[in-house]
Structures are given as C-alpha cells and as structure tokens.
C-alpha cells in the first residue's frame, strides 16, 4: 500500500469526530432528528474510512471479527431482552409503560426507548462493519 500522508492524517483527525457525532445521533434520537439506525450507519462509516485509509489488516487488528460479531448479537439481545423484561411486571412484549409504572420512575419510558436505540445502533454498526470486512477481504490480496 502506498503511503499517503494527507489521507492518513485527515482520517486520523476526522474519525473521532465522526464517532462522537454518531454517538450524538444515537443518543439524541428521542429529542430530535436521529436514532439508532442513522447513528449506527454513521459509526460504521468511520470504520469504512479507517479501512480505506489504513487498510483492512490494520483495522482488523484492533477490532477483530470476533468482537464485531459479538457486538452485532449484543445489540439484538439488548432489544429483545428489554422487550422480555416488560413481561415481568405484567405488561405485554415491548410495553415499556409497564416497567415505568411498576418502578414508579418518571420518564422511564423515554429512557428505555433510548436504551433500545442504543441496541439498534450497536447492531447496525457492527453488522455494517462486518459486511465491509467481508467484502473488502475479497479480491486483490489472494486467489
């Protein structure tokens, strides 16, 4: 791979900003435009930028397949488990309101929505990254 100082430096600088922005988009979902999907995709975009700038092997050393797959499962688990937890106080599946009334915490409904959005964001980020890993693994390098 050719050394390209400008691309590497610029991506090194912008990746943290992209990731912070992605987190903002995920967490801000309940208050304004944003949400888990959008944030997750923006987060995955930062990985794509890193792969373009530094190469797949370099990125994969830090975030291995193992972590990425585990994260994509974790996101759905968060979502589905919050749904199942709602059954305990007697609500129906995904009925966050039942937890809110059972615990008596105000605005818990909104916080649970945030938690669910985080779950969505994790899965979308991890899956997008996994797809990019798999696709950029093919081609030039071997076979």
């Amino acid at each position, binding site marked *: 791979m050719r050394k390209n100082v400008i691309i590497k430096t610029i991506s090194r600088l912008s990746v943290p900003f992209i990731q912070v922005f992605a987190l903002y988009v995920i967490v801000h979902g309940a208050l304004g435009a944003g949400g888990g999907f959008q944030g997750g995709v923006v987060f995955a975009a930062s990985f794509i930028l890193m792969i373009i700038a530094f190469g797949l092997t370099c990125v994969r050393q830090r975030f291995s397949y*193992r972590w990425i*797959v*585990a994260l994509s*499962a974790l996101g*759905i*688990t968060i979502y*589905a*488990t919050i*749904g*199942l937890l*709602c*059954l305990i106080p*007697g*609500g*129906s*599946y*995904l*009925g*966050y*309101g*039942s937890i809110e009334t059972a615990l008596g915490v105000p605005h818990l409904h909104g916080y649970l929505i945030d938690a669910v959005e985080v779950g969505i964001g994790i899965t979308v980020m991890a899956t997008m990254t996994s797809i990019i890993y798999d696709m950029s693994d093919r081609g030039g390098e071997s076979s």
Partner: protein
Amino acid sequence: MTLIEHLPVLVITIPILASLLILVAGWWDRRFCYPISLVTILSQFGAAVIILAQVMREGPIRYHLGGWAPPLGIELAIDSFNGFVLVTILLLAAATAVYARRSVEHEIGPEKTVSFYVLFQLLVTGLVGMTITGDIFNLYVFLEISSIAAYTLIASARKPRSYLASFNYLILGSIAGGFILIGTGNLYAATGALNMLDMARLLPASFELATVHAGFLFLVIGYSIKAAFFPLHIWLPDAYAESPSAVTILISTVMSKVSVYALLRIIFTIFTTAYIIDVFPVTGFILFIATVAMIAGAVLAIAQSDLKRMLAYSSVSQIGYIMFALGVANQVALEGGILHILGHAVMKGCLFMVAGLIIYRVGTSRLSDLEGIAKVMPISCAAFALAGASMIGIPPTIGFMSKYYLVLGALEAGHWAYAAILLLGSLLAVGYIWRFIEIAYFRGNRDGGHRARTLEAPASMLAPMVVLALLCLFLGIFVEGLMEIVGPAAALLLGGA
C-alpha cells in the same frame, strides 16, 4: 398462566434469541449448534400446538404488542386458519430440523455450519412471524427476514449454479417485495390503516377507487411471485434443484405455503369475498390460471430428467390446486384448499427427503442414474411410493381427501369443466410419479451387481421421512378430526372478519 398468554410473541422472540445463542455457542464449539436449533424448533412446534388448542377452545387470540391497541400498535392475530398453518409449518420445520444434521454435514462443510444453522433458525422464525402477524407492514418485514435467509441458504450449497439460482431468486424476490410494498402503500393511502382487520373495516367505503384495485393487484402479484404461482414460477426450479437438501425441503414445503397463506389472508380477510366476486371480479381469472398451472406444471414435471427438478415442477402444479380453491371461493373448495396446504406440505416434504437421501447416498439425482435404486434403498422408495400415491390422489391418502373436497366444491359452484381438468391434472401426476417408480423398481436388472449392499441412509434421516410418509396415509384416514379445524377456518375466510 401468564406465559401461555404471551405464547404468541414468545414463539417469535425466543427463537430470535436462540439464533444468537447458536452463533455464540457455535463460536465456542460447532457441535452445540445443531442441538440448540433442534430444541428451539421442537419447542416452537409444541407452542404452536398449545396456541392452536387455545384458539379452538376460546376463539381467536389478539395479542397487542407493547399494549398499544390496533390503529396505533401492531397486533398478532391468531385464528383457526393461521393457527392451522402455524402448526403445519412448524411440523415440517421440525421434521426438516431432525433430517438436517447429516445432510448438512454432508453438503455444507464444517466451517459454514454455524452460520447455516443461524440462518435456518431465522428463516423458520421469519415464516412463523409472517403467519401470525395481524399487521400488513409487519408481514412485509417478516417476509424479508425469511427471504434474505432463504437467498443465502440456497447459495449455501456452494456450487457455482446455486449462486446463480440464488441471485435470480433474489432479483425476482426483490421485485415481489417491491410490488408488495407498493400495494401496501396504495391501501394505506386509501384507508390510513395498516392493521389487517382495521383495514378490512375501512376498505368497503373506498372499494370503487382505482387505488384499491391497484393495491389488490400489486399485493396479489407480489405474493404470487413468492408462492411461485404459475406464470411467475420461473425462479423456482433452479432454486429448488440447486440448494442443499435440507433447504429444499424447508423452502418447498414451508416457505411456499406461507406465501400462499399470506395471499389467502390478504384476499379473504382484507378484501373479503364481496370484493373479489362483485366489485373486482377476478375469481374466474384466478381459476383459469390455476388450472393452467396444474396442467403446465405437471407436463413440465414429466419432461424433466432430474428428480429434484421434477419435484420442483410438481410443486408449481400443486400450488395451482390451492389457488384453485381461491378461484372457486366457496366453503367446500376452501376446505379442500386449506387441507391441501397441509397435505402438500407433508407429501412434498417426504418426496424431497427421499431425493435428499438419494443424493446423500448416490451423489446424483439424475433419473437415468437411479435405475434399480429400490433394491438398495427399499424404505426410501416405499416412502416415495406412498407419498407419490398421495400426490396422485389415491384414496385414502390426504392427497385424495383434499382433491375430493376441491372437486366437490367446484361441482357445487357449477364449474364442471374445471373439475374435469383437475382430475386430468391428477392423471398427469401419475405420469411423473410413475416414472420414478418404474425406474426405481422395474429397471436396472441388467447391472444389479455393483449395488448388492444396502445403501439405506442413517436413521436420523430415515425417521422423519417415514413419519411424513405415514402421515400422508393417517391424515387421510383420520380426516374427520382435521375437518373440525379446517371447516371453521374456511368459514372464517368466507365470513370476512
């Protein structure tokens, strides 16, 4: 007690979590995948039986997700019709899961086992979701879960041709998905509702709008592509013939049935019989296409030189029988059609299992290479003969019962010619079933030498096949018990809500 109440949603969400468990456990040790998958599908089947029993006892279940009642939220609606379909598909999925282990070891290769079982589980879950949801957009979401899993599972045979078959299916499936989305959008524009029963309530006011007609056409065409209804079946033969045996069984029995179910549900529950008979008369046309499908599918099946491909075309023909019931649209014919959903699933599952066993042992499914196979695989060929008899419609098999009701319904509605064509279609079924029987039993005397040893497959593959073959017989004999579910289901479809 409360758990029973939540069973409709648990039957979808627990398997989703189980598929994640398969992924994580499989990472640790691949041998964990299969038991988890099997236990999940078997417990889904058990749950489905409990749900159906509850529906028959206490009437339809309506489960409001999140506690939000319909115009706002999504509901799961289970009545006798989709309860019956739910049990049918999970019965076949359980049989396939038992069958799958050896077949997967043989055809997929060890490094892909984990993802295969994850997708297998997701495919079944998507189909279960399609069956019990009461929301038309939710139906689309589950349809896409099952479709994406199916595209990949077809390609998991890892043969060059299977990639092509999968890609062609992906293109057609996406067109179908797009059509379904457009149709849903048109209905949503006309009514503002997405819940099926709510839509059925609001729709009569705007029956005359072209938007509603267009929505009807798009939904019917979209789901017909998915169900491989005759002129739209072009993806089917390749997809069935090139995929691994376990996947062929699952998509040929379960997936096509769920698409047909969705079609019946949309036409009868949302649009009601008043629409398809008086407002936008399509029943005659559907009846015509259905008979063409029966004949053309059977003729194409006779023309094939490969066992799996022959059975694939036979599916095209058999889907025609179910659509025939839709075209006649009276109580007796619909009973026959719903019975055929179960009957065809059971017998086609058995036949494809035999084809899978032959591939497992002989390595090919070309008919010309199978001469005298009955001598070395006696149980499999006997099962083929029994299921084939059911396919033809020889009494007292389940295939006979469903065709009997179909003919009876057609006669009741005065469609003499169509009833005659249906019988002709059964005669053509003799053509392709007999071809295999003849090759397997009565040919190949000249080189019987090299196949002296019996080649019967392992018990875990034989057992589900034998069970399905016997079911073809016993369901036909004890059809009275089934009619207690099928009768109300047909009445429910005709009654609208």
